[in-house]
C-alpha cells in the first residue's frame, strides 16, 4: 500500500516534471525576449513596456492579455526580417517577413504630450534605395479598452489596422511617413480623434467593408488621399482639417458617410465621388460642399448621410 502510494507520488512527480519540461520547451516558440518583455511571439501575461524595445518578429497580444506601453518608450523593429511570422487576418501577404503587433486583447499605448511613445524608426535599404517599413499595429477583436495616444507612429506599411469589431481609441497621435496611416475593416469602429496624420504616401485613412470609424478633429495633410471610404464602410467625418492632399475625401462604390464641418485647404481635389449612384452624387454632395478656397475657410455646413 505504501509502495503503491510512493509509486503514485513518483508518477505524479514524473507527470509534473514532464509538464514542466513541455512548458519550458514550448516557451521559446511562443515568445522571445528578456526581463519579461516579449519581443517576438505571443504574450503569456500582461506586460508593461518602457524604455527601448526592439521587436524581432510579430508580437501577438492574445485575448485577455493587456500590453501597456509607458510614456517615453521607443519601439524599433528588425528591418526586412521577422523571426515569427504569424498569419494575419488581413494584408497577410504584406506582413510576411516584417514585424507586426497583432492585438487581440488590449493594447494601451499611454504616451504623454511631452513624453511621447515612438514607434518605428527610419531604416534605409541601400539596395532598394528606399526606406524599410515595418508592418503595423493590427487590432482584432473587441479590445474595448485599447488606446493609442500621444504616440508617433512612422515608417510602417499601415500604421494602424482595425478590424473584427475592434474599437480602439486613437487620439493625439502623429501618424506620419507610412504608406497608409489607418485602415479600418469589418465592423471595426475606432475613434480616430485629434491626430496629426501627414505625409503618408498613399491613403491617410482608408475605410473598408462595414467599418464605422469616427474620424474627427484630425489634421490630415500631404497624402495621396486624406480619407477614403469604400466597400460598405461608413465613416463619420467631422471637424477635420484636410490640407495639401491630392484628394481630400474619396468615396468609392457602396460607401457612405456622415460629414460635418471639415476644413479643406489646398487639396488638389477637395472631394471626389466615384460611386455610381446618381442619387447620391446629385442630391447630397453638391449641396454639401462649397467651392475650394485657399484664402477662406470652407466648412461643410450640411450634415448628411448616404446610402
Amino acid at each position: 500500500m505504501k509502495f503503491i502510494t510512493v509509486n503514485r507520488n513518483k508518477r505524479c512527480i514524473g507527470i509534473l516534471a514532464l509538464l514542466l519540461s513541455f512548458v519550458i520547451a514550448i516557451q521559446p516558440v511562443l515568445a522571445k525576449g528578456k526581463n519579461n518583455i516579449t519581443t517576438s511571439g505571443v504574450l503569456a501575461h500582461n506586460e508593461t513596456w518602457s524604455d527601448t524595445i526592439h521587436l524581432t518578429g510579430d508580437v501577438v497580444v492574445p485575448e485577455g492579455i493587456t500590453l501597456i506601453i509607458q510614456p517615453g518608450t521607443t519601439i524599433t523593429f528588425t528591418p526586412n526580417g521577422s523571426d515569427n511570422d504569424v498569419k494575419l487576418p488581413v494584408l497577410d501577404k504584406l506582413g510576411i517577413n516584417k514585424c507586426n503587433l497583432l492585438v487581440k486583447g488590449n493594447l494601451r499605448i499611454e504616451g504623454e504630450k511631452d513624453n511621447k511613445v515612438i514607434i518605428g524608426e527610419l531604416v534605409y535599404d541601400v539596395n532598394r534605395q528606399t526606406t524599410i517599413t515595418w508592418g503595423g499595429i493590427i487590432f482584432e477583436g473587441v479590445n474595448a479598452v485599447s488606446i493609442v495616444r500621444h504616440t508617433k507612429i512612422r515608417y510602417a506599411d499601415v500604421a494602424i489596422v482595425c478590424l473584427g469589431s475592434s474599437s480602439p481609441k486613437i487620439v493625439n497621435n502623429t501618424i506620419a511617413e507610412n504608406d497608409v496611416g489607418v485602415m479600418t475593416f469589418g465592423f471595426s469602429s475606432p475613434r480616430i480623434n485629434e491626430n496629426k496624420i501627414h505625409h503618408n504616401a498613399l491613403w491617410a485613412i482608408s475605410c473598408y467593408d462595414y467599418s464605422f470609424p469616427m474620424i474627427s478633429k484630425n489634421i490630415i495633410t500631404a497624402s495621396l488621399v486624406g480619407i477614403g471610404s469604400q466597400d460598405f464602410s461608413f465613416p463619420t467625418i467631422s471637424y477635420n482639417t484636410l490640407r495639401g492632399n491630392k484628394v481630400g475625401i474619396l468615396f468609392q462604390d457602396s460607401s457612405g458617410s456622415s460629414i460635418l464641418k471639415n476644413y479643406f485647404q489646398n487639396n488638389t481635389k477637395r472631394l471626389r465621388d466615384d460611386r455610381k449612384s446618381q442619387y447620391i452624387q446629385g442630391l447630397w454632395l453638391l449641396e454639401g460642399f462649397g467651392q475650394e478656397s485657399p484664402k477662406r475657410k470652407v466648412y461643410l455646413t450640411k450634415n448628411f448621410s448616404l446610402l
Partner: protein
Amino acid sequence: MRVDVVLKKSRGLIVIFLSLTLITAMTTVAAASVDLVFTYSDSLYSVPAATFDDGDRVYVKVTDNVTTGAGTETISVINDQDGNKISVSVTAGAASKLYYGSFIITSGADAAETIHMTNGQTATITANLGDDEYAGTAQITADYGITPLTDVIWTYSESSRTVEATEFRDGATVYLKVTDTKTKGGTKAITVKNNQIGNTISVNVTDSNGDSFYVGSFIVYSGANDDVNDKLALFHGQTATITADLAADGVSGTKIITAAYLASTVSQIYIKYQDTVLYNLVSSTNRNNPTVFAKGKIDEIYLKVNLLAGAPLNEATSSIVLYKLVDSETEEVSGSQEMNRDTGWAELIFNLSPAFDPDVDEHDRDGLYWVNATVVDTAGNSEDFNFYFIYDTTSPSVPDFQITSYDPTTGSITVSGTTVPDVSDPQEVEIFVNDSSKGTVTADANYQFVKSGIGLAKGTNYIKVQSMDKAGNKSKLSKTLKFAYNPEGLLSVVFRSTHVVRRDSPIGIIYSVTQAAEIVIRVYNLNGKLVKEWKGNASPGVANEWKWYGKNMYEEEVNNGVYICRISAKGSGNRERKIKLLAVLR
C-alpha cells in the same frame, strides 16, 4: 776798308754763330721725340675721326719721329669717366717711324683690345714710343647716337603697384617701377643707397612686358644689410635713394624713400586663463573675418609691445580695452587695466572682471569681441592696435543629413546635408558608421556638406553625424539613420517615383538580380485576391523594368485604391521576394 773787313768778319762770325745755334736747336728738337697720336675710322688710316659708335674699331697711328724699326710697341687707352683701361699694341709700318694699331670701344665689358665706354664718355689714348719722358695723347669720344634719358622711378606699397608710397614700415616691401621711355626688355640693375649710413644694395628690375617699364622690389628693414635678398638696412627716420640708369647713358633718375617705422610693434597678444595662454590673436585683425574662435574660461587679454622709438611707455595715455560688438553697437566689457614697462618694451594687460565662465554665464557672453589697445610712449609716438575674436560656448545644432547616392560596385554611399548656421562657421561635420568615424567634411558657405565614398558593412549600418564649430563646440550626435546593406542579395527592386498609378502614368518597377532568376510579379487587392500576374526571366546585372498600368488580368482598369505588390525572384538554390503597397488613383 778796315772797318768793312771787320764788319764782314763780324757778320761771318754771327752767321756761323747763328748757324751753330740753329744746328744745335735742330739737333735738340729731334732728340725730344714727343709722340704724336692720330685716330682714324678706317683701316687705311685715311679718315681721321675722334668720335666712335658702339662697337666701332678705333684705328691709331703713332709716331715720335724718332723711334723706328720693325718691332711692336704698347699704348694705353683709359676711360676718362670710369677709369677702366686697356693696352693696345701698335706695330711699325712700312713707313719709317710710324706705328699702327687699333682697338674697339663697346658699351659692354672690357676685353682684349676692347674697352668699355658708355655713350658720351671719353677715353684718352696715351703713347710713348721709345719710352721717354715725352708721351703723346689723343682723346676719343663714344657717340652711340643715344640721347641721354632721365629715368623716372615710382615706388608703391603693394604689388599691384597702384598705391604710390614713399614711407615704408619696418620690413615693408618697396615695389618699384622704372622707365626711361626708351629702353626695353631684359633685366637691369639699379641701386638703393641708405643716405645716412651709406650701405647700398643692387636690385634687379625686369621689363617682363617689353613695354619699357621695369619692375622689381626690395625690402627695407631694421636688420642687417642683405644684398643677396634685396634687403636694405634702413632705420626709422632714415632715407634711401633709389638710382636707376636703365640705358647706362649717364643720366640717371632718383627717388627718395623714408623709413617710417612704427613707434611700437606687437610682440605678443594672447587670450589667457590663469596665466595659461589659450589663444593667439596676433593675426586676427580683421573684424569681418576673425580667425580666433574662443571658448571656455578666460580672464585676461595680454599684449606685449616693442617700443621702437626709444622712449618708454606713457602709462597715463596708453590703454587696453575689450568691447563686445553687438550689431553696430559696442559694449565695453568690465575689467581693469594693468601696465608694465621696461626699456624697449611694455605689457598692457586687460583683466576681465568677472572672468568669462561658460558654467556661470550660460552663453550670455557669446559674441564678437574687439581688443583695442593704444600704445603711447613718452615721446608722443602713438600706435593703435586692434584684434578681434569670437567667443562661442554654444554647441551648434545637429545638422540634417541624408543619403544622396549609393554605389553598388563599391558598397559605399554619399552623405550630404546642411549645418545650422552658427556664429563660428563653417562647421566641420564628422560622419560615423557603426560608431566608427568615417572622416570629416567642412560645410561650405551655404552650410552644405557632401561626403562620398563612405563604405558600408554588410548587414545593418547605423549612421549618424556630429558637427563641430570653429570654436571647437560639438553638436549632439544626430539621430541614427539605420541602413540595411546586403551586397549578396538576389533581388534588388526600385519603384520609380511614387508607387501610385495615375491616369496615363503607370508604376515603374525596376528590378535586377545578382544571378539568373525567374521573376514573378503579382498584384493583389487588400482582400488577397490576385489582380495581376506577370512572369519573366532576368539576367544578372541587368536593370529591368515592369510597368503596371493599373489593369487586371483581363486588361480592365482596376478601382482606385490600395494594392499589394509582391515581386519574387527564384534563382538556383535561393529565392527572395519584396512586397510593397501600391495605389491606384486616376
